[in-house]
């Protein structure tokens, strides 16, 4: 009966002991993945930015963080679309600094959401949301031979058909996830705003990107935006002029959203510091979890050894007469002591086995109960919508609870249980060995 109590107590504390490190290990693993993902995201972005040192982006709509580099990938629909007359192309082209032409190329494009809409369910860190968005975005690009050959204004990952080429008219390049929407493949004809287009090629894209590329003149015509554009990619002759030219454009066209290399770099740095913050939040959250866990383990260990101690003391007291008999028939102090120690170790072993059994079934539950959730964002702060995290590849909030019990951990737990049994019975066993035989025999 009392032994059962000890076994249960030991069992639970061993269960706690193996659940917590397992949980912590799982946490650390997800932390590792998180950190790796963030680092690689930053690196990729850095590389992309570095490639465009001479690029100044001008847009009639605000940039959406990362979306800067994914034209047409509007995340939430309903952005108020405004346009500007294409005469601006020549005006910007003629900007000079100290009498020297510094603008190398100005590439206009027209981006316009389709008039048809779709509903879409997307997964956010805060649950599933149904959004209402345009079915696709039309992107009209300048199909000049010099521009196509010098700049990658068109998608490069063509999976079927061919890319658009110089002077193409009434041809489109569509993102792969639109084939279903248009029910069309390469060579098929689709209708956009009442005009017929032939699908020349299909490019591989992320699930968010639903875009149709066409000649800018086609786009202006079918959208009724003759002479209007929404975006300008301004390339300067040398990256040293980038900031200066951007400032000139900003001053001359306050209605444009202008981002230079410098701006993008700042954006990235901002994002990077946010990621760093996120990581350090997660780290401190884990550290906190660990210290809580350590406390829980210490308490469990202390409580268990105390229980073993008291039960064994009681047992020694109760068996005083027996100890007297054993001594009277020639047991040495050491014999008596090892008898009780053996008992403690045995109880420990049984308790440990019970603990491993309990632990292996409830470890995930117990560890998530005992270890605070990792808080990526610290406090109540949440990522702001304007800065979109590439959420698809970050290990998110609920992904760490895969707790596994390694054989090493099980062995360790059994060892700990035996040790607890031994430690808890050390003093009682010593007391038992010191009992005088004559006193013990008189004990009833």
């Amino acid at each position, binding site marked *: 009966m009392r032994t059962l109590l000890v076994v249960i107590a030991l069992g639970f504390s061993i269960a706690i002991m193996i659940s917590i490190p397992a949980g912590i290990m799982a946490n650390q693993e997800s932390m590792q993945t998180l950190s790796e993902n963030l680092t690689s995201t930053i690196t990729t972005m850095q590389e992309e930015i570095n490639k465009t040192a001479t690029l100044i982006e001008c847009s009639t709509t605000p940039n959406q963080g990362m979306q800067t580099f994914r034209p047409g990938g509007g995340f939430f629909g309903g952005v108020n679309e405004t346009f500007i007359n294409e005469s601006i192309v020549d005006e910007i082209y003629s900007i000079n600094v100290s009498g020297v032409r510094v603008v190398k190329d100005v590439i206009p494009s027209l981006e316009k959401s389709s008039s048809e809409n779709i509903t879409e369910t997307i997964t956010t860190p805060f649950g599933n949301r149904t959004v209402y968005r345009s079915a696709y975005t039309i992107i009209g690009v300048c199909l000049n031979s010099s521009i196509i050959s010098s700049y990658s204004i068109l998608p490069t990952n063509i999976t079927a058909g061919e890319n658009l080429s110089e002077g193409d008219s009434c041809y489109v390049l569509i993102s792969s996830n639109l084939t279903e929407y248009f029910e069309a493949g390469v060579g098929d004809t689709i209708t956009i705003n009442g005009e017929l287009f032939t699908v020349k090629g299909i490019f591989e894209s992320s699930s968010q990107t639903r875009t149709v590329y066409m000649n800018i003149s086609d786009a202006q015509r079918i959208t009724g935006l003759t002479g209007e554009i929404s975006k300008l990619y301004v390339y300067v002759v040398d990256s040293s002029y980038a900031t200066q030219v951007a400032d000139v454009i900003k001053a001359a066209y306050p209605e444009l959203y202008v981002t230079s290399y410098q701006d993008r770099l700042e954006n990235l740095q901002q994002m990077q510091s946010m990621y760093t913050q996120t990581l350090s939040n997660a780290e401190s959250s884990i550290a906190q979890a660990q210290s809580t866990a350590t406390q829980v383990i210490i308490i469990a260990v202390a409580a268990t050894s105390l229980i073993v101690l008291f039960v064994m003391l009681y047992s020694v007291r109760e068996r005083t007469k*027996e100890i007297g*008999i054993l*001594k*009277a*028939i*020639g047991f*040495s102090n050491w014999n008596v002591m090892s008898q009780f120690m053996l008992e403690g170790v045995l109880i420990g072993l049984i308790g440990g086995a019970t603990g491993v059994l309990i632990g292996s079934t409830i470890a995930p539950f117990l560890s998530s109960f005992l270890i605070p959730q990792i808080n990526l964002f610290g406090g109540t702060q949440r990522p702001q919508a304007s800065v979109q995290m590439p959420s698809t590849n970050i290990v998110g909030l609920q992904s760490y609870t895969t707790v596994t019990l390694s054989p090493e951990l099980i062995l360790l737990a059994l060892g700990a249980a035996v040790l607890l049994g031994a430690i808890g019975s050390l003093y009682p066993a010593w007391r038992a060995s010191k009992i005088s035989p004559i006193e013990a*025999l008189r004990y009833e």
Partner: protein
Amino acid sequence: MNETVLETEKLDKVYKLGGRSIRALSDVNLQVKKGDFVSIMGPSGSGKTTLLNILGCLDKPTSGRIILDDVDVTTVPEKELYKIRRYKIGFVFQTFNLLPYLSAIENVELPMEGTGKSKEEKLKRARELLKLVGLAERENHKPLRLSAGEQQRVAIARALANGPSILLADEPTGNLDAKTKYEIVRLLGKLNTEHGTTIVMVTHDNAIASHARRVLFINDGKMLSKEKMGLFAKEKLTCPACGREIQITHVFCPHCGRKLSN
């Protein structure tokens, strides 16, 4: 029978209870030769248990010496005393003191724990001893399933486990009914006469005490100077009915079949 196994010199034992001191033993001088069977007779409270506990190294005298097999055990440090208890002394208690959760044979094996004997040796020895006390068939019984007399037999077998120099028995028949009392004392007699076991037995029962070779008397912690010859000392026993020779272990005369009293 000249070799002295046990000898005491001026044993004193004083119990201090609160402010009062009780002199349980005073100036006890005792000599037990090898192969002897001494019974010490005395009324309740005369100091018999005190004396036997001291002889059995369970308790210490206030003063005096105990020489057991030429060793003054009063000088042996407490930590080493277990060796004397284990190898030199066999102790039989009034209340048997068997471990209830061990079988008869396990109880007998118990004193051999830690002597370095192998499992087989211990088992063999324990079987021998159970056979000697007439319980060969009962080796797997727990004490509670044995009668009082049988339990005392197991206790005697246990006391003999390590071949002690002397068997000390404190009122070994005190908890037994009239019939089993004689069985036990005859068993002790058999061990003494047939196996040469040296025995010191204390009892307040005159009839039981007289079964020894020598009967000594104790009163108020002092040994009296008178000494009686016990039944076992007599060279020959004869049947009171037919006059032919009988053994002390006989309950009925093997010749005329008459029931023999004590």
